[in-house]
């Protein structure tokens, strides 16, 4: 783990605060116009996708409808929902963009997400045992967890998680691993399960019952199209998220390391525990700007479209303190994620023999 002196940490904190304050002071029309333009794009794609879907018996129309609806779900989840719920647009004072009341187009309820993601994941980023997003209690991604034979099949778990990502994310707060270990009781999660069922039911009803039935003669086509759109969204969002913290160089931390942490140490942990990937403007937008995961983790409540603008400055700060700024191409970063999942599915002895550098 990268360590800095007390003075360096203080000055790191000041440098990053300065960037944040400057952006905050500059928030205004430009940011409001941006997010409203994105919301308009989402509505256009969503309405367009739903309208085209019943004509999906014409193959090119089916492709266009699935792409349109899939993109709309991606944009709503990544660039609108995720970012609005972080409070990035609370300053606009628009009730429709309020972090505490926004509800997004996915199975996970906004409230559950605000607890598990905004609070747990963003506060305890990559702290093993505290950040439940690290491997989702489903994957072994470092050697802090003892290898068990079941881990050898974890690549299958990964495929299942990524295909059914919205259902997995929705169930995240159940903490099934802790229930299995007897740390908590299922009955404590009754309220959560009720809300999960309600929101999951709502999402399933919409895409798999209501819209297919509405267009009964072509119901199978609409059903298939809606499943495909959800699948595209699941694959993309899980891939983006995995690239944010599970790449080769993304560091992990122990609870002891983070006790009585200062804000400077918290910044350092966010910088070294996150990873970016490069891409076009459109790819950045589709990722909800989580392609700038580092900037997002340092400034989770700044409007995300600002991340590419401040990235050079964050990179310069990293350079100043000798902190590794973890970035690379999308394919390159995703490759290291897949490698990590595969490597840690092996017993430590075998892993170290095959790739000694992971020691």
């Amino acid at each position: 783990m990268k360590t800095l002196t007390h003075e360096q940490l203080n000055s790191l904190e000041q440098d990053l605060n300065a960037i944040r304050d400057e952006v905050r002071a500059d928030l205004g029309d430009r940011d409001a116009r941006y997010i409203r333009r994105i919301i308009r794009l989402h509505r256009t794609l969503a309405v367009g996708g739903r309208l085209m879907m019943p004509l999906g018996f014409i193959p090119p129309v089916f492709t266009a409808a699935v792409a349109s609806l899939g993109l709309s779900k991606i944009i709503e989840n990544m660039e609108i929902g995720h970012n609005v719920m972080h409070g990035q647009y609370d300053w606009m004072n628009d009730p429709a963009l309020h972090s505490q009341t926004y509800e997004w187009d996915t199975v996970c309820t906004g409230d559950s997400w605000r607890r598990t993601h905004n609070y747990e994941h963003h506060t305890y980023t990559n702290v093993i045992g505290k950040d439940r997003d690290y491997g989702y209690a489903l994957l072994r991604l470092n050697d802090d967890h003892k290898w068990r034979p079941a881990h050898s099949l974890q690549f299958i778990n990964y495929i299942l998680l990524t295909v059914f990502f919205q259902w997995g994310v929705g169930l995240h707060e159940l903490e099934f691993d802790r229930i299995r270990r007897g740390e908590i009781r299922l009955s404590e999660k009754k309220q959560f399960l009720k809300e999960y069922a309600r929101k999951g039911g709502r999402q399933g009803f919409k895409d798999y019952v209501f819209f297919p039935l509405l267009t009964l003669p072509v119901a199978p086509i609409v059903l298939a199209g809606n499943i495909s759109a959800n699948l595209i969204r699941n694959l993309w969002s899980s891939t983006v998220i995995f690239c944010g913290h599970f790449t080769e160089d993304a560091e992990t931390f122990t609870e002891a390391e983070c006790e009585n942490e200062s804000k400077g140490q918290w910044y350092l942990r966010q910088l070294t525990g996150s990873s970016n990937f490069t891409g076009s403007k459109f790819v950045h937008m589709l990722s909800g700007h989580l392609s700038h995961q580092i900037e997002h983790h340092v400034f989770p409540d700044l409007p995300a479209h600002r991340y590419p603008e401040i990235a050079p400055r964050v990179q310069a700060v990293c350079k100043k303190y000798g902190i590794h700024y973890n970035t690379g191409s999308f394919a390159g970063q995703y490759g290291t994620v897949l490698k990590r999942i595969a490597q840690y599915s092996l017993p430590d002895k075998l892993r170290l023999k095959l790739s000694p550098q992971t020691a």
Partner: protein
Amino acid sequence: MLSLLEKNTPLRWLGKQLFNRDDPAAFFDPLLERINPLWVRQYVPALVESVVDETADTKTFVLRPADRWAGFEAGQHVSIGLDIGGVRYNRTFSLSSAPGQWAADGSVSLTIKRLSGGLVTNWMHDNVSTGSILGIGEAFGDFRVPETQEPVLYIAGGSGITPVLSQLQTLAASHYRAPVTLLYFVRTQADIIAAETLTALSQRWPALTLNIIATDEGEHPEHLSTTLLDRVPDVAARRCYLCGPKGLMDIAEELLVQRGIDQARIHSTFFAVPKAALDGDALGGAVHFSRSKIQVTSKGDAVLLDIAEAASLTPRHGCRMGVCHQCSCRKTSGTVVNRLTGKASGPGEDTIQLCISVPQGPVSVDI
């Protein structure tokens, strides 16, 4: 058609399922506002039809609210919503037109004076023009015209004339016969708002006695006094309506009560003037947690989350360091200082993070 998504219960339920929001009809706003801004459902939009100069620093904005707006009674206020620099502001103004005008042609008027240092009023003067869209809330307020024929006294100061204008026009239109006197205080003759309307009213409506007093003019500047009230015939028998700066309203109420007028027959309506920002030392203040009905006093730079917890409240929160926004909630009034940036909030309704907000004077929070 979209109103069905709001009013029809099964359709509203369906809309909630499909669009994940309590106001499903507003899902289409971003598309509809491009076609016709008056089709927006999130708030009731109003089209600015014209802007008229009243005085050097006062303008009347004539608005046409969307059809679903429910109307108002003379003397009531509305909350006006508008976006400035990407931020939505809501401010309360009195309607200066009579309900009869709205019934006849669907328009209402706001008469607004520039407040020195006021963000919203200055912005409206400088930027709102014919064709602009403003949000308009439902009318509220119990500053209402008398129900029966009885003598009336209006005391208005400055832009406090606006709800009075609405009432006078309403009374005139109803051929009100009991005597009505208006004492209207302005700084100079040039500050008279709606001078033509007032003159025209007094000419065609014999019941009205108009007395406009310019306080900063003449050799002997005149203010509200016993002598002035003595000139109003049978003042003790009148129902009184007061609207103006706090100083004027306080004196008026005192003088009227001295003359034995029952408090129940004195109607006041305030319009707030924003206070200047306090200096950095003046932190802390009376904190009102409105939903829990708890009032406490805070000292120094304690943040609202700590203050709430000290008062045995358990507001939702997370990181306690301004990161996760779990504790974001509505501040309904008062000023808070952001502990991270040192910046003070505005005095009105706002979303704040409890864990980094320090009260600066009295604050009311919706928890």
